[in-house]
């Protein structure tokens, strides 16, 4: 089955917060679990080996999508953003590992938690999303909370 491209609007398709909030909270849960399993894996493995296993998992998911859903890569002009996003995801992971490798986790992780602020600014500039005072305050609360959660390592 082929996924349908978006028409270009930024409005939620399902008209309620649940449409984006449920997958966002699912992501939060899965990546939260990832923190535990990664820590358990790193008891015996080095981080480059973990990158290899992560790459294999992505490859299996991608091959499954191609095999089951007949998904194909389209080289439409805006596929460049897909390529850029893939490159960013992989590069960010390497940067995080490099930072942790040369610094203390208790210092690095709280600092890296500030990235939603970058998204907030870029989303307003590039996507023309509303940076309302409520949204800025809520994002600040999440960042501050995450820093408190991670500052003790």
């Amino acid at each position: 089955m082929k996924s349908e491209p978006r028409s270009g609007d930024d409005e939620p398709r399902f008209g309620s917060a649940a449409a984006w909030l449920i997958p966002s909270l699912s992501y939060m849960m899965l990546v939260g679990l990832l923190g535990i399993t990664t820590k358990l894996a790193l008891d015996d493995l080095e981080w480059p080996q973990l990158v290899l296993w992560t790459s294999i998992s992505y490859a299996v998911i991608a091959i499954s999508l191609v095999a089951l859903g007949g998904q194909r890569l389209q080289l439409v002009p805006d596929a460049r953003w897909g390529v850029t996003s893939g490159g960013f995801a992989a590069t960010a992971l390497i940067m995080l590992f490099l930072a942790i490798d040369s610094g203390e986790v208790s210092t690095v992780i709280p600092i890296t938690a500030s990235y939603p602020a970058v998204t907030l600014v870029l989303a307003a500039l590039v996507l023309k999303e509303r940076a309302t005072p409520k949204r800025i305050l809520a994002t600040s609360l999440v960042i501050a909370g995450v820093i408190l959660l991670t500052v003790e390592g």
Partner: protein
Amino acid sequence: MTADWLLPAAAFVVIEGALGVTTKLALRSIGWRELLIWTALAYAVLALCLIAVSGERVPLGAGAGWAVVSGIFASVGLLTFFLALERGEASKVVPVSAAYPLVTAVLAALALSEEVSLLRGLGTILVVFGIVQLGRD
């Protein structure tokens, strides 16, 4: 002298912050399945570079099981992130998604018996309150 970790940490903040925006831009033209394939390709290139440059090998045995589970969580997690961005604004989805240390803290307390301090309790309250506000915005 600037700490060695600061440059890659700053690069992570900028790249990860930009990722939410480029993903949203990508999802205007392609579907989340196709985006997942592009991401898998990027990781495959990364893995091949690691193998070519440093001679890394995929280890089996102790630790590999948790690595496989971690890989599954990472890839399914990314899938849900794409679904969220397909349906909601990047400036709301990314902050909520970034609250995952809350889950790690709770699970670490339950599964690894790590301490639940006053600071972590306060952090939990701030994160939950922030998520609720973003959901209502």
